[in-house]
């Protein structure tokens, strides 16, 4: 194994005293390992030298927010929805329904309402009471007649 390969064990303090001495001797002569070691030392030093101050009252603010969010079910639902996709989905839904409403073929024929049905039944009874021809004698006759009358209207 090359001495350079011991670099990580050296950084991690995993070498015994003799190995460490050997590696430090190697560092003096190996530009690559020396540069890497110094660079890492300086990066770590630079990152730890600057401290950022924590804002005051942060725990209380977070705890309040956590409990407020839990209390409100609508906030929970909204939190599931990402704003941009939700807005796009809403707009697409509105557009789709508008399109379906405007296309004539998509609108279903209006069903016969209850009052119209009653009017037809009464009409058939009126026919029964008049001339004997075309008398309605049973349910089958009534249905046949309704089909004919409904189709001719």
């Amino acid at each position: 194994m090359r001495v350079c390969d011991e670099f990580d064990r050296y950084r991690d303090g995993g070498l015994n005293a003799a190995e460490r001495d050997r590696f430090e001797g190697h560092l003096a002569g190996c530009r690559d390992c020396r540069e890497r070691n110094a660079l890492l030392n300086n990066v770590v030093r630079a990152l730890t030298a600057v401290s950022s101050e924590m804002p005051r009252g942060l725990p209380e603010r977070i705890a309040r927010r956590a409990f407020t969010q839990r209390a409100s079910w609508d906030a929970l639902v909204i939190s599931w929805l990402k704003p941009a996709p939700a807005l796009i989905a809403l707009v697409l839904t509105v557009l789709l329904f508008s399109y379906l409403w405007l296309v004539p073929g998509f609108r279903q024929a209006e069903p016969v309402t209850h009052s119209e049905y009653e009017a037809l039944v009464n009409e058939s009874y009126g026919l029964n009471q008049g001339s004997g021809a075309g008398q309605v004698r049973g349910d089958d006759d009534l249905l046949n007649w309704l089909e004919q009358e409904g189709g001719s209207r």
Partner: protein
Amino acid sequence: METHIRTLIIDMAEPADAALIENTLKGDESAFAELIRRYQAAVWGTVHRILGSSSEGEDAVQEIFLRVFSSLRRFDLKYPFGPWILRIATNYCIDLLRRRKARKYKLWTDLSEGEQQKLMNEMSVDGDFDSRSPETYERVARELLNELKPKYRTAFVLREVEGRDYREVASALGTSELAARVRVSRARSEIQKKFRAFLGGSGTED
């Protein structure tokens, strides 16, 4: 002996994490605030060191503790709370770094090429920095870290900057110790590669 007694007094005076968690789950807001107070410095430090941007720091810490709150029911009280929070924090930071991958920072546009070169040369030699502000060196270090993949960067910060052992690093990253060692090792090599690429790019290699 004195330390032991002090620890004992603290243990008696302060409720254990488990008690605070149970009270939080029962709806005690102040218990959760106390839990945050205990871990906010650790989370704040880790987030700040990994993300580097103080403007994002507060939002990130808030989001991390909100994630902790929403997952609290799933936490097994048999285990210590600190590593669990650290794992949530590092996962959050890695997610955030992956999302902002496309963004490029150039934090030293106010320096001339010669000054940048001098700065980088100082970074490659052991010894005291010159009289520049610590923030300047932090910017250089950040510039190098920004080039690393999020998983390498996080592993590097946990191990090298925070001095955590590999067991903790592995636990925070959700990997094996061996994988954690590999990530830290790659991060070390990558930092040197990026450093040399910068020196090469500026056209004044020694």
